[in-house]
């Protein structure tokens, strides 16, 4: 998009929002990593008194854009202009001084601070001789909390609050303690329930209308973007596709802009999985009417050995919880049943599930899956050394190494320093390959993969997905969950769509259409009669 077009949009905006000034101007911003453009030629003006939505698929460049805007990443080209001052180099500190404040996607909390302390940390109200005036701090905090309608005492510890309240308090902190003129919210609503979402939206609308601040709102949920934003910019493949007033868009158009047309999105690889050749395989893994508190409800589906089933949803839609439950990690009360073959099991422990042939791959790779400080071999074998002992109970390293070599070969894991090197010397993609390799080594019948491609570079992603489709599915039933529809379309025989804890849709491979799946996981009604989407209304259990 050239400057002329930007100016036109700008002019449009001025009509609907008279007196708005450009607060933050992004001109020709691009970012390249090793020759590959992640962002190219972004031109955007953010006006005072507007809520500006930025949407796009995963990998569209949103997070890079956010990083550039508040200074934690430097653009390869282009300029940033804040309040008519062109900045040569923006750093997070400088951004903070210019009142550009980011509320990041994930925050680490100092759990033992009180709300008041965490609001004013770094700038405590001081009294005589520089002591911290606790009373004043409490008073100010209470006022702020009342302002947003949060009925909590500021002396409560942050760690005792729900995640939702913590997120809201972070926004409060950004708005009034840091006095943000430009507030960047990076998927802040993902963790919020309806009530708190409403609260946040009211708050944002108020500060934008009354105090003429600017809010930049990055989100995945199209309905809420449509609800709250004045203007929306769509990113796709690192390019700015369109900036438009919300009034000129409907949600279908928006979904189309994000995906990039209705027809280009057929999955390319039509080679059948093992399953498709042998349809008569019994349904090894069956879940019926499974509900678990707030996480998911009335979930039913079956997966046959040799089949890859995708579970598509937005972050927070309940797919992670479902997989964690099936892996034996979510011990909340539940109803419904899980069957392996003809046996009903209650998943209460990962070791128990593993013995029954169910393996789970967590989406928190660094925290929950890797053994840091141990060798690649150790990480590959994991808890599976039992398989490699001799009669005396000693590990046979020859066998172990043989298996490691084999896994390395089929998964093409790059180990520049051999398998004895530390796991932390590998890249994200190779780490993930190691973890998938570990699951394979267990000889499982059911694999539960949560966001297997997250944080994996493009080459490794291709390899992993191919591998799951061609090799893993030979021996096991695979259920893989993701918010990246394209990834699922590449590998799955079927895709189930989960929305707010319910399975709302199911697609067969022949009917895959990124646009429809994307709309379904957004909770939008899909036109059943249109095109070839005939399977849309069938539930997973019927397949």
């Amino acid at each position, binding site marked *: 998009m050239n400057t002329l077009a930007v100016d036109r949009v700008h002019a449009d905006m001025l009509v609907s929002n008279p007196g708005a000034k450009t607060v933050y101007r992004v001109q020709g911003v691009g970012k390249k990593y090793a020759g590959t453009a992640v962002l190219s030629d972004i031109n955007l003006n953010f006006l005072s008194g507007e809520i500006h939505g930025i949407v796009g698929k995963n990998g569209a460049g949103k997070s890079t854009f956010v990083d550039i805007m508040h200074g934690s990443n430097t653009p390869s080209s282009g300029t940033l202009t804040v309040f008519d001052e062109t900045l040569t180099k923006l750093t997070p500190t400088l951004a903070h001084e210019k009142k550009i404040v980011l509320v990041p996607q994930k925050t680490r909390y100092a759990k033992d601070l009180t709300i008041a302390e965490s609001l004013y940390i770094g700038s405590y109200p001081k009294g005589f001789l520089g002591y911290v005036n606790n009373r004043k701090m409490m008073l100010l905090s209470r006022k702020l909390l009342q302002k947003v309608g949060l009925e909590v005492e500021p002396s409560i510890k942050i760690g005792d609050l729900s995640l939702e309240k913590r997120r809201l308090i972070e926004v409060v902190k950004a708005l009034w303690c840091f006095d943000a003129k430009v507030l960047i919210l990076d998927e802040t609503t993902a963790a919020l329930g309806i009530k708190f979402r409403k609260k946040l939206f009211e708050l944002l609308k108020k500060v934008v209308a009354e105090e003429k601040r600017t809010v930049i709102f990055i989100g995945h949920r199209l309905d809420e973007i449509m609800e709250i934003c004045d203007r929306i910019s769509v990113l796709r493949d690192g390019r700015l596709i369109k900036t438009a007033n919300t009034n000129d868009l409907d949600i279908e158009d928006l979904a189309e802009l994000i995906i990039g047309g209705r027809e280009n999105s057929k999955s390319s690889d039509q080679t059948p999985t093992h399953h498709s050749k042998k349809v008569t395989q019994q349904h090894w893994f069956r879940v019926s009417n499974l509900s678990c508190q707030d996480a998911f409800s009335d979930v039913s589906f079956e997966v046959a050995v040799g089949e890859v089933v995708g579970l598509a949803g937005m972050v927070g839609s309940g797919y992670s919880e479902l997989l964690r439950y099936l*892996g034996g*990690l979510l011990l909340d009360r539940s109803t419904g049943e899980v069957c392996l073959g003809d046996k009903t099991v209650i998943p209460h422990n*990962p*070791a128990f*599930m*593993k*013995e029954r042939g169910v393996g*789970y791959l*967590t989406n928190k790779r660094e*925290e*929950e*899956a*890797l*053994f*840091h*400080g*141990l060798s690649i071999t*150790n990480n590959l*074998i*994991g*808890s599976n*050394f*039992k398989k490699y*002992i001799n009669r005396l*109970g*000693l*590990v046979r*390293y020859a066998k172990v190494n043989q298996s490691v070599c084999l896994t390395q070969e089929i998964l093409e894991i790059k180990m*520049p*320093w051999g398998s004895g090197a530390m796991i932390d010397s590998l890249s994200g993609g190779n780490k993930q390959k190691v973890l998938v390799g*570990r699951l394979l080594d*267990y000889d499982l019948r059911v694999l539960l993969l949560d966001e297997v491609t997250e944080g994996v570079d493009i080459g490794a992603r291709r390899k992993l997905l191919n591998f799951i489709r061609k090799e893993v599915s030979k021996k096991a039933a695979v259920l893989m969950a993701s918010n990246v529809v394209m990834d699922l379309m590449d590998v799955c025989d079927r895709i189930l769509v989960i929305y707010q804890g319910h399975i709302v849709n199911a697609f067969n491979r022949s009917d895959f259409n990124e646009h429809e799946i994307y709309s379904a996981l957004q909770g939008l009604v899909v036109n059943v009669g249109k095109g070839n989407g005939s399977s849309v209304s069938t539930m997973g259990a019927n397949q």
Partner: protein
Amino acid sequence: MKTLKDRYLKLVFDNFIWVLVAFFLVLASVVIDGFFSVENFINMPYHSASLSMMILGMGFCLLSRQMDLSLESTYVIAPAIGVLLVTRWFPGIPDNFAVLFTIITGAFIGLTNGLLVVKLRINSFLATLAMLIVLRGIVEYLLPVGIFKVPSLFGVLGADTFLLGNFEIPYTIFIYITIFVIAGFIVRNTVFGKDIVAVGSNATAAFIAGIRVDRVHILVFVVSGICAAVGGVLAVGKMGSVMNQLGNGDILFVFAGTVLGGISLDGGKGKIVNAMGGGLLLTIITTMMNYSEVSPYLIKAIQGLTLLIAMILNNVIEIFVRSRLSR
């Protein structure tokens, strides 16, 4: 690519304790008159054996990211109960069974520790700290001073020697080296050992990977209790008595020895066999003090200082090697 030189560098770094041991041996031999003698070089491992057994126990605990402070009390109460069982409470039992009972007592104390930590979720530092005090108290109650006649098997294991050429070598040395080798084998070559390391490195990941983390932790405490009891047997045999103050205050040296041996407090890192070097180094330092004419009031200060130097060397080398390897 990693060069051959880097490979050697890493090898040296991973086993740095032995470099320290050699360094101090050479230093003492050169500086202190009379330090360099075959008797002394046999005596040092002999005297380090009982402490090293506790270090081994602590090594297992640290590898799985737990701690066991009660080792030094187990070290005395296990032989005390073993001996009292055969001499006072059940005089009918043959004397030498006392050694067996000692080991069983150690295992039982370890099991108690393990259950407290795993089932009741008490922090292992606190649970075993309480145990440390309680057990010492019980020993002081049971033995107002000590037992001065112990079954003969203690003496065989802890004090008797066999002739090798012209030199008398205590069985103790043979026993404790064997145990360390077996321990090294367990950690490196058995499923239990692999599980210990995995649990110590990342307990959540281990749990998700299907390792029974609780069971591993309990077993580790049992092993560590047994190690302390074996150490107790060797110490009692060496002295021919069970004194109620045996091992009092040793736990700090146990920590020092284990960490010097390269076993990280962060869990999952280190070689159990190198913990033996840690014990050896502590004994070398003590022996140096005894041989040199330092004022007895300064011994503690110098011991501490030497430890500090050893740790500084350890970390400087670590930083150096890391910067080289990460280039």
